[in-house]
């Protein structure tokens, strides 16, 4: 695993860039498909926030566990859930990664220890603490990465979960994706102390603020934090400063923020930022970018085809899985 910007190789740079382009392309395609009513329900896109999922996932191994929110397409793809399985899930097909029962907010992949996809804000934090408790009781060197938004910080479960993880010295990496808004509520109108990283002190948890628009900064911060979490078996809180380029969901008139603010952040697009750095290092040619784009489009087209041609779960199976069919 290569974390430091200094040692940035062409190969690693292209991998990160490709991964972000892939997520961006996926989100944009989802946006179109929603308009075509191929995807329904709530759809929360992560355009602008790709660097966090991509940078962080570089540092996790198969033994580590991931817990995410309803804005988790990027995390699912970066974790390695095949794009066609994710797209099929958004279509509600049987071949989807949650068999069509979950949809955009509830992506799962047990084989990759991807534990969702949680649509109750803050609801994933206690679950992550429990997974980490199991990892610790089994004396594994694994960690659990728990992604959540700035809005979740106001929930009581944030408080209870950070205290529990710290009290019991559990290997949880809490990753707050602070995009400044919870739906239409700006952070400073939700938090008396808007510095989220400062709250970690109330639990004696180490914390850091990271530029969530810089994939290399994200990877470096996660690499360092993950090392501490694993070796000392303690939780750490990373606050990623980022921004959501698109609306909260498909039903958001965005009355709460101005164009100027959005445009200012768009200048810090993590894809543009990384491309520029790679160009400066002379390791990125236009042809590389074109190739990455072509690969991404091809994969997207294949994923859509897969979803389109996948079967629907038979209605007769509606009540399956309410209770487990097999014992773990």
């Amino acid at each position, binding site marked *: 695993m290569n974390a430091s910007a200094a040692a940035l190789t062409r190969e690693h740079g292209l991998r990160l860039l490709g991964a972000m382009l892939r997520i961006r392309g996926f989100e944009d395609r989802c946006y179109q498909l929603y308009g075509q009513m191929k995807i*329904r*329900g*709530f759809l929360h896109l992560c355009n602008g926030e790709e660097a966090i999922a991509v940078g962080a996932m570089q540092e996790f191994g198969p033994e580590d566990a991931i817990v995410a929110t309803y804005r988790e397409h990027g995390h699912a793809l970066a974790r390695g859930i095949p794009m066609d399985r994710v797209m099929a899930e958004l279509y*509600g*097909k049987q071949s989807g990664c*949650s068999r*069509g*029962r*979950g*949809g*955009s*907010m*509830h992506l799962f992949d047990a084989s990759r220890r991807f534990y969702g996809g*949680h*649509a*109750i*804000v*803050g*609801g994933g934090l206690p679950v992550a603490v429990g997974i980490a408790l199991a990892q610790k009781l089994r004396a594994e060197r694994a960690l659990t990465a728990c992604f959540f938004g700035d*809005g*979740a910080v*106001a*929930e*009581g479960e944030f408080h209870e979960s950070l205290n529990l993880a710290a009290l019991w010295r559990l290997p949880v990496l809490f990753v707050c994706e602070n995009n400044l808004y*919870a*739906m*239409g*509520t700006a952070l400073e*109108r*939700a*938090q008396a102390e808007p510095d989220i990283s400062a709250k970690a002190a109330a639990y004696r948890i180490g914390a850091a603020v990271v530029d969530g628009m810089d994939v290399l900064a994200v990877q470096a911060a996660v690499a360092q934090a993950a090392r501490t979490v694993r070796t000392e078996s303690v939780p750490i809180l990373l606050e990623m400063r980022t921004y959501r380029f698109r609306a909260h969901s498909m*039903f*958001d*008139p965005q*009355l*709460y923020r101005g164009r100027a603010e959005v445009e200012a952040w768009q200048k810090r697009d993590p894809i543009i930022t990384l491309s520029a750095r790679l160009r400066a290092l002379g390791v990125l040619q236009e042809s590389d970018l074109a190739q990455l784009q072509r690969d991404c489009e091809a994969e997207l087209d294949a994923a859509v085809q897969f979803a389109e041609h996948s079967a*629907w*779960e038979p*209605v007769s199976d*509606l*009540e399956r899985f*309410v209770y487990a069919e097999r014992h773990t």
Partner: protein
Amino acid sequence: MPSGTPESAVSLSYRDAVRAALHQALSEDPRVFLMGEDVGRYGGSYAVSKGLLETFGPERIRDTPLSESAFVGAGIGAALAGLRPIVEIMTVNFSLLALDQIVNNAATLSHMSGGQLNVPLVIRLATGAGRQLGAQHSHSLEGWYAHVPGLRIAVPSTLDDARFMLAAALALPDPVLLFEHLYLYNMEGTLTEGLARVDLEHAAIRRSGRDLTLISYGWSLHKCLAAARSLAAEGIEAEVLDLRTLRPLDDAAIMASVRHTRRVLIVDEGWRSGSLAAEIAMRITEQAFYELDAPVTRLCTAEVPIPYARHLEEAALPSAAGIVAAARALLRPAGGS
């Protein structure tokens, strides 16, 4: 709402009706304020409170952090202290985080204090499935809440009730939960001419019939009305009773209709086991058993966390077609035809 023209004349949506009710309550009583997630700058997650912030300001259209337990509890405290809070919990699904405050505080304080305190709090919640929102965003728990003494549970299912139930709720000294089915927000129509208020005591017959009674509320009520229309085409006249309040239940209205039609189908979007439908059936057994020509029947939601896929979600929920089939079976028992 455009002032000048009488409200009843203009066509409006259920969403507009709730907004007009909020506007009126805020205008008429300085003790009233609205508090909840994104009710202000965002305009309400279902655009119900859009524009109210501009009119009434941030003190009375109060955005809250994501802290359901604290802001619901704060509503209880403000009500204890003499205000008339309207707390919006964005959807019933998130109310589980505030359940301790609702069940252990709002519902108990009047009785536990020997009648010294009371909690004139109104909680508005969007409820229900049907929009492919998945298991964590599709609960129908209003019937479940109706189990709790000390609470009043009401469901506006028509434009008139959407427009006037809020005032009735605010006029009561007790905690009232108003459940707005998210599928109804876009329902369009006009208000009954001259109507200025509704009560929170009586169920309402939305369609009269002699052959069977369909008992329902919320989105299911409209499925019942649709089913009743198809049934009429085949000569079956279904009476459709809108419960309106789930706690207390209007037993008199239920029994009157049962005595009239002698056959009952209860349609409820809650999960079948432990559904409100079971309670209503039990009351009919207790109060009108010998008036029945057939066992009371029910059509509820399948006992599954609501799945995302449209065909699965539709299969899980009561449907007009399902109601028609159940009504037929009720009238022409197996064998007969």
